[in-house]
């Protein structure tokens, strides 16, 4: 019984991590239709923001809003300087964002070197709840991730801003002609996508290594979640993260981590086959 509770909590923390890492990609790829191969680097830079915050003696919690601000600015710059010019041509976007990911990795390497960095756990130890001991930081992570994901999704589905973005996605020229300020809306949407990735990076920083290559590990997981959850529904990020976390935790429990990775990828192939996704013109 206790073992089951622990496994459920493990699954929940994996779900929260996957959901917040994939959230930005859900917005940028799922909603706006931009294939962003530099998404993992946004997460990695968020983790470095946490490192710099720690190195300057500031609280880890401060790094979450800081990472959001830094990544929003960076994401917005990238939208204006790069994505805006090419977003109608997916094949060019793939190449450009792939190149961008290399540039970001190398820039971080130039500044921080290749050395591994780390951030100490701000709340070390475990908490007893539901009859089991479970790491305190993971409870915090689950809480923050769920709040960030839900608030962001509400902003995109229930607000006027969200409506604007969806109008642009549906028909940019028509939106432009109707007086919608397409430039600003896209700029903000991409910036917010990057900002959530930054928060994700700062949030997972105390659980692992921070290094320039770290982003590469997040990208496949994020795409997996968006593919499984469905491209054209933003709330799909939650469904996708839930399914992927359940499959991974289940397979690790009964088999091992290598089979869990294979199962998750097989799931993505299956979902793509079942779904016959439209490439263009996704709606919320």
């Amino acid at each position, binding site marked *: 019984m206790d073992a089951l509770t622990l496994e459920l909590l*493990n699954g929940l923390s994996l779900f929260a991590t996957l959901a917040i890492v994939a959230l930005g990609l859900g917005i940028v790829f799922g909603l706006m239709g931009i294939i962003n191969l530099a998404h993992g680097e946004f997460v990695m830079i968020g983790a470095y923001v946490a490192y710099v915050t720690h190195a*300057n003696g500031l609280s880890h919690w401060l790094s979450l809003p800081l990472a959001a601000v*830094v990544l929003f600015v960076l994401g917005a710059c990238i939208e204006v300087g790069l994505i805006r010019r090419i977003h109608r041509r997916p094949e060019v976007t793939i190449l450009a964002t792939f190149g961008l990911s290399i540039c970001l990795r190398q820039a971080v390497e130039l*500044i921080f070197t290749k050395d*591994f960095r780390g951030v100490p756990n701000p709340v070390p130890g475990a908490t007893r709840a539901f009859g089991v001991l479970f*790491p305190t930081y993971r409870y915090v992570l689950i809480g923050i991730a769920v709040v960030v994901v839900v608030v962001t999704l509400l902003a995109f589905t229930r607000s006027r801003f969200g409506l604007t973005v969806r109008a642009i996605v549906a028909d940019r020229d028509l939106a432009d002609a109707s007086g919608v300020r397409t430039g600003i809306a896209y700029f903000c949407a991409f910036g917010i996508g990057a900002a959530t990735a930054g928060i994700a990076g700062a949030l997972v920083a105390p659980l*692992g290594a921070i290094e320039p290559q770290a982003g*590469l590990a997040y990208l496949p997981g994020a795409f997996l979640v968006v593919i499984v959850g469905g491209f054209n529904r933003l709330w799909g990020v939650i469904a996708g993260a839930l399914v992927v976390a359940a499959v991974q935790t289940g397979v690790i429990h009964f088999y091992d981590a290598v089979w869990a990775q294979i199962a998750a990828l097989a799931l993505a192939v299956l979902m793509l086959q079942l779904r016959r996704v439209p490439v263009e013109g996704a709606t919320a």
Partner: protein
Amino acid sequence: MGSTLKPRTRSRFRTAAIMMALLLGMAAACATSDDEPAVAEPAATEAEAAPAPADEPADDSDAAPEPTEAPATTAPDEPAEPSGEPVRIGILFSNSGPAGIFGQPTANIAEFIEEDINAAGGINGRPVETFLADDATDPAVGRQAMEQLIESDGVDVVLGTHSSATREAAKPLAEDAGVLYIYAALYEGGECSPVMFNTGEVPSQQLAPVIPWMMDETGGSKWFLLGNDYVWPRRSFELARQYIEAAGGEVVGEEYVPLGTQDFSSVAQQIAGSGADLIFPALVGGDAIAFETQAVDFGIGQDAIPRLANIYEENVLGVMGPAVTAGMRVTLGYFKEVDNPANNAFVARYFEQFGADAPPHMTFSSHIYDAALLYAAAANAAGTTDTAAVAAALEGLSLSTPTGDISITGSRHLAQPIYVAEIQSDGSQLIVQSFPAVEPDETCSP
């Protein structure tokens, strides 16, 4: 809509560029305010940029197959004795990509190789020159790097410290060209080729003497083996299982996780439920950091279940922090803390030359240094740089280096000392046990 919008977009682009520059500037300022000032760019780039025209082959010995042209270069402008066309020593290493973290110490040690061998009179009276090539931790790039060393730089020997995948990709080129290839990284064992020698630690050396010692030391006998899923951890665990059972212990769990694993919660739970009282983690880089930092909160840290690690190195241990690492034991063929007069002087000189905060000299760079000394000694004994003659001279060759006493075995591997370091509460490493001249359990007769 195009033409009217253009000026606006352009000015936006400029604003974006300025903002980006500001952001990068801010980040750079943060980085320099940190305790680690920007490190000077590796010596590797200098060495790579060093003139190495393809039409100027390094040749010398009559036995070598390459055509000889008039040697154009003059000897380096140092007053030392060696003169003539330099002997070219290629170093194939990982200076970027995941294993790039081990690159800088090797690039530094390449300078020592030139200085020390030349100061001792060079090879057969000729100076040595090193040529570095980066495999970017990618076998395809590694193959090209090997090609560059052999074809463009015209090296007489290649010393390698990189993954086994790169070795397998690059080896055929050395075999075809008849260039001696000394692979100096710790690896899974089993390599055997007419042009190759393997001087890194193999699992039998790292584990055979240390596993029984660890069980005596801690009183534990129930091992959990946790490794990344590739050949080196699998081979290490295969042997570890034999040594554990021979010493009267048992393996209560064996798990493999993919490289790049970030969440160890389920694995931590399996370990906690296995009843293990010893953990042998064969995890590399970021995976090691993620596992150890997460394990503490799951109640299976070093305090609860002692670790014997075979790859945890200083950078990785430093990030985990002493609170996590204190008490862990690591088994390797070299630590900079090895206490003998030659090593103490060597390490002091290293930090004096490359700065107190230089990436520390460690087992990979130490084995490259030793491989260069072995090559120089063998080439001097053979009186030539001909591959077959040097290979014959290498077999059975013994040397005393800062590492300790080493000798090439009949299986073309290296009998070498194995050290066990224990991490102290301040994060430093203390050698708590050493096993001299440990023989590798390998067979090879090419």
